[in-house]
């Protein structure tokens, strides 16, 4: 794992429980600059983690710092420096985009005039310039995501928390939001933490990734490095009795997935290697008819780490 050039978020042994559910279970994390993806299946603890980082929820145990500020003792300093775009709808009815954005700028501590001027700027930036005086309830799903992004940007934060930024969007709307996020994180000197379960979104925007599963960090680091380290991915077709062969591979710590078209995907640890696959085939009497090393994607990493397709 490459050490991050600048540490934005640092967590040690963070635990949080919702009644009987251990939502965060000893989360240790270091997140640097740029765009970082927070991945995990539903219920993994992604949104809970964001809420703990913002000080909405107080952790039961552990400690954490965001932009150098303690999450327990200094949540207000964090909120001044962080912009938050929530997953669900949060737009106040009866307002136009300028009033809405300026209002939250003012609540962030901006003088009123500055907040209004700044609201116009960010609304143009997110592509709502023409629609900035329309009532929010008339906005489409894509526009709603943009206005949520605008209110998160209005006070010029150093770090953005985006919770499922592309949810409910059509492909075009998704591409546009992703283009904005990329622009913000790569050219505007604003670091971004994106929580999502849409792997392609993370792959398109982030250089670093943290995978959460059942409240624990299952993997973290630079995306490219994580995709390559520790295992090779092969696709193969076989002829013969599959089960003994697959059992033999599983016994040697390979992870096996069968695709719909009868193809097997093998995640092979370095100590086994490709020769180990052929040895297992020879031992169990199957013929390998197709054997290709595949490029690992984030989906492969996610499937291997979390154990879901």
């Amino acid at each position: 794992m490459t050490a991050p050039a600048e540490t934005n978020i640092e967590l040690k042994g963070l635990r949080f429980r919702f009644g009987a559910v251990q939502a965060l279970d000893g989360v240790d994390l270091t997140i640097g600059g740029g765009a970082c993806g927070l991945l995990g299946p539903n219920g993994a603890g992604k949104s809970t983690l964001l809420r703990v980082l913002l000080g909405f929820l107080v952790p039961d145990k552990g400690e954490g710092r965001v932009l150098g500020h303690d999450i327990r003792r200094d949540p207000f300093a964090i909120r001044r420096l962080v912009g938050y775009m929530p997953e669900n709808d949060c737009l106040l009815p009866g307002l136009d985009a300028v009033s809405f954005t300026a209002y939250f700028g003012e609540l962030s501590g901006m003088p009123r005039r500055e907040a209004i001027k700044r609201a116009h700027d960010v609304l143009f930036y997110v592509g709502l310039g023409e629609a900035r005086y329309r009532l929010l309830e008339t906005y489409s799903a894509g526009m709603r995501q943009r206005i949520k992004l605008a209110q998160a940007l209005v006070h010029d934060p150093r770090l953005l928390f985006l919770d499922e930024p592309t949810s409910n969007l059509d492909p075009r709307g998704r591409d546009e939001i992703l283009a904005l996020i990329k622009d913000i994180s790569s050219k505007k000197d604003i670091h971004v933490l994106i929580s999502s379960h849409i792997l392609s979104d993370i792959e398109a925007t982030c250089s670093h990734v943290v995978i959460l599963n059942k409240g624990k960090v299952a993997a973290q680091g630079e995306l490219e490095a994580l995709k390559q380290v520790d295992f090779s991915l092969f696709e193969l077709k076989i002829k013969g009795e599959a089960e003994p062969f697959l059992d033999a591979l599983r016994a040697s710590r390979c992870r096996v997935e069968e695709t719909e078209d009868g193809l097997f995907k093998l995640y092979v640890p370095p100590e086994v290697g490709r020769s180990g696959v052929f040895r297992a085939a020879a031992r169990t009497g199957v013929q390998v008819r197709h054997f290709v090393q595949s490029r690992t994607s984030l989906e492969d990493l996610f499937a291997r780490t979390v154990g879901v397709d």
Partner: protein
Amino acid sequence: MPIAEQGYLHWQGRTAETRRPWRAITRFGVRLSFRRKFFKLTLALSLLPAIVFSVGVYLAETIQHFQVFMGGSRQIVAVNPAFFQTYFTSELLYFMLLMLMILAGTGLIADDLKSGSLQLYFARPLRKRDYLLGKLGITSFFILLLTLVPGTVFILLKIIFSGSFRLLTEHPWLPLSVILYSFFLAVLFSLAVLFVSALSKNRRFAGILLFLIYFGSDIAFGVFDSIFHRPELGWISIRANLKQVGYAVFGGRPPLDVPWIVSAVILAFWAGVAVFFLYRRIQSTEVIR
């Protein structure tokens, strides 16, 4: 729709750390209320009693000019503490305050709960206290507009038209009574409306509930009183309790023959319950277990 029609510019200013963010909520809420036509109309109607009373102050001090119309009567109205007591404890004032609260207050928290915008508020450097004070400020503004402002105007008009400070020298506690009872009404009505607003995500439901609580308690008092004929039963009526305290604050004899302080304690208790509930109900994040 084109993305990034103009480039992102960093803001060069600094966010303030010591300001009181509740003021922004109040200012915004008041501005937003004035965007509603029906609310503006109701507010204008609510000010009519104050205008009538102001005319009363004028007439009281310039009666000699109108004696020809009054058939020799020397005084139609006296501007004294009883005059203020009449205004501040009138059923019409309470009713107009209630109507304003229903129009301007019932959506204050209900709308935030419904839209899920509480998380946006608390993603800012904002305490629960700031949020509630901001909302309380909105309703208090309108209540004080119908209580403190007219009360102060009556005193000023009396001084101007009479050309003397006799009212204040004879009743030096009167301005204090006006301030005290105005804030008393502001806090109570505001907490009541915020309480019902936080009970539901539907502002209409909150409005109906406030109406039912206010008039329901009065009807219950009327029914029990007709059966048992006991003045203590007035303590169950919000209106009767408000009147008891109002009469006491302006130096009059309370309409019910029971200690007014008990009414004050009962209202303070309900205010405490509302504050407790609001602190519990307002959360930055909704936890679904």
